[in-house]
């Protein structure tokens, strides 16, 4: 058991947790940030993706202790106090979600993707880069469309999915 401190969505937080506590468990159980989900046991589904020091990471594959001292952004903090982040808005407008369970991870992954690729993002790249995020509802069609729309809005994509 150790006291773990980190910055989550701009606020300093700390809590006592066993060393084996995963970052996702710390976020959900200790901080009540239940927007980050767990959909598998093998680090593949990506429902748990958050940003650690600005980069997308699977919070089910990182100990909370590893993240101590880091800056974490979760889906709850993505808009940074604004109404909606452009990626969130694009998912809404393009029907990029159905049951919503994979959505937080998808949006966090998409935000990271747009940050890295900006104007060069195209459909093939989006599809390749979604390798670490599984959705069972949408067939990805509208997720791809949402991400391209967001990239376009944020300054860049070449073309929409259809």
């Amino acid at each position, binding site marked *: 058991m150790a006291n773990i401190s980190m910055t989550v969505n701009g606020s300093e937080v700390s809590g006592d947790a*066993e060393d*084996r506590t995963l970052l996702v468990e710390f976020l*959900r159980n200790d901080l009540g*940030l*239940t*927007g*980050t*989900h*767990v*959909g*598998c*046991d*093998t680090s*593949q*589904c990506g*429902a748990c993706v958050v940003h650690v020091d600005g980069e997308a990471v699977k919070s089910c594959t990182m100990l909370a202790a590893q993240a101590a001292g880091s800056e974490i952004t*979760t*889906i*709850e903090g*993505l*808009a940074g106090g604004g109404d*909606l982040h452009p990626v*969130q808005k694009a*998912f*809404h*407008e393009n*029907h990029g*979600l*159905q*049951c*919503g*369970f*994979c*959505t*937080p991870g998808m*949006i966090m992954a998409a935000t990271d993707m747009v940050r890295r690729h900006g104007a060069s993002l195209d*459909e093939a790249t*989006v*599809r*390749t880069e*979604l*390798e670490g*995020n*599984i*959705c*069972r*509802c*949408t*067939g*990805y*069609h*509208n*997720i*791809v*469309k949402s991400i391209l729309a967001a990239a376009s809005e944020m300054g860049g994509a070449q073309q929409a*999915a*259809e």
Partner: protein
Amino acid sequence: MGAEGIGARVARKEDKRFITGKGRYTDDMVVPGMKHAMFVRSPHAHAKINGIDKSAALAMPGVIDVLDGKQLTEDQIGSLICGWMIHSKDGSPMNMGNWRPLAEDAVRYVGDAVAIVVADTKAQAREAAEAVSVDYEELPAVTDSMAALADGAPQIHPNAPGNQIYDWEIGDSGEVDAALASAAHVTELNVVNNRLIPNAMEPRAALGHYNAAEDHYTCWTTSQNPHVARLVMSAFYNVAPENKLRVIAPDVGGGFGSKIYIYPEEIVCLWASKRTNVPVKWVADRTESFLSDAHGRDHVSNIKLAFDSDNRITAMKVDTVANLGAYMSLFSSSVPTYLYATLLSGQYNIANIHANIRTAYTNTAPVDAYRGAGRPEASFLVERAMETAARELGVNPAELRRKNFITEFPHQTPVIMTYDGGDYGASLDAAMKAADYDGFAARKAQSAASGKLRGIGMACYIEACGIAPSQAVGSLGAGVGLWESAEVRVNAVGTIEVLTGSHSHGQGHETTFAQLVAERLGVGIDTVNIVHGDTDKVQMGMGTYGSRSGAVGMSAISVALDRVQAKAKKIAAHLLEADEADIVIEGGELKVAGTDKTLPWFQMALAAYTAHNLPEGMEPGLKESAFFDPSNFSFPAGCHICEVEVDPDTGVTEITQFVAADDFGTIINPMIVDGQVHGGVTQGIGQALLEGCVYDPGSGQLLTASYMDYTMPRADDLPSFTVETTKTESPSNPLGLKGCGEAGAIGSPPAVINAITDAIGNNDLAMPATPQTVWSAMKA
């Protein structure tokens, strides 16, 4: 159509909470004093339980209790049931083996629940579950349905000799045999419909809370039909009487059928909460979901299709063996019978059909309805046979289908169904046009030039949605009625609540149902709130599955809206001193047609509640309810075309285009309908190319128990889709809706396999057509 009414492409109302991380799923629920559960599960596919030693586990830190099947029996908790009685052709009832929520004497599949551990933390519960010592005496196991029905197979349930559950038939075998004997051509095919694991992204979960002070239970659960869960847990499992049991299904993260059923876990969590006097939460690990969620498909079939000399189908004969797993899940018996064999006529005019269905127990997870449920199996069989026949007869596959299409309605098939309408030629034409079918030869040549094999395949599917009417399904063995309920409450200021027995797990009911209200009452969708998923709020419902929420659920709302409108018009006519027949409702007002007299909607509502000036004898208030029971199924149909390019070196299949042209009748929200098609098609492509549940036949261990081995469709496995719609309205419900949730998964698998077999020139190709499978088929 208004900006938010029927047919409008409205962005979903429910999205905001999901895209901001504020969705509330069962695992997000926290109740004061809540503890955590782990199930002790069988590591063996088949074993006798000689004893359970819980002492070590009970002594571990944080452990509150360890409960087993003996205690469950002491408390008279009932066995799980299958809710659809099937009689074998000899008249005997199906052989239903006893399914205890916690196995007491024997375990019958890997993952069978044996005990529950309740502890302060999940980690403690997990550690204690490992310390529960079960004395198993291993027995031989069988996982394959054909092997289970063979002589000498291990006997799984004492009351199902030879592991046969039932041997059922439909149609006239004499007529069919005669037609086969005199046919100009018979196409025969052996087909395996591969077993699938549903994999909703939200794993199943349950939180049971017994409140001793009130002698009342609450269950939060990942359910597609909370009311049925309450009904069954009260009436059959003896958990609690209905009035002392509240079932809440909050946000549900996908289901695809797997969350219809009432599983052991929610029963046991509720019971354990009373036993331990703490709220008990269980959340499945993904591997637990793989092991214990009801699986889908798993048919082995032979089909014979007889043609006359003019290439018209004269008869069909089908023999199918279906694997139902270790126990009969809630609707399992109906899937290979009334949801499968009744659709074997496809879109075709076939005078005689006979199907014989045998079902088997095996040492595998229970098998039940999964997106499409029986209809994908029927569609795959029929459309693979049609494509094969076209190849054998040397005719164009589209024209062979077109020649045999049903064109006059209503049409009585030889397998119960009365198709009430459709235009199959229209969807075939739409799909071929969208796919540039005529340009295929040029594209094939282009692929060949770069060393790739290109193929094209189609499937013309039919499905039956919104199982109905209740009286008919009751006569076929269903244990429940398949109506839906709705209540429309107009508040005193005119805002509206709709209570529905349908329950969204991703379908967007909060939006589409509000669109119906907007259309009918001329109000904005923001003034409409949809209430669902809570048995304390909604009186009764049958839930969401079988593409029924539109055709049945919305129809119930529509009927309730009729009643609201009628009363509102009476009030308006009274206040406006006009004839009730002259009142129209539009744009948030009640108007006297042909005059400038209007009454704002909210003033009418206020008048209903102040009751200062209502027509004589009218009760105050404005709240109406309805139970809607459709007169028939609805029959969505369509044509899917798939084009593939196969890499001959590796067997990798790339889907270069996928076109779906579907007739869903009236469409409420095209954006949501398109999304349903995308998702359904993806699950069908998953079945065709990627997904296959594999048990080790000797040990009965599940080999595909995680995403490391079970291939989920990912974004880079798929193209963007082309979705077209054609329209003939369903005459069986007031809105003309047909249902769109399952069609994608029904039409796509045969289209994909027809395309690959076209590309590689070998018609014998198993699903999933993985690169290795395709490579092997090319070499064969």
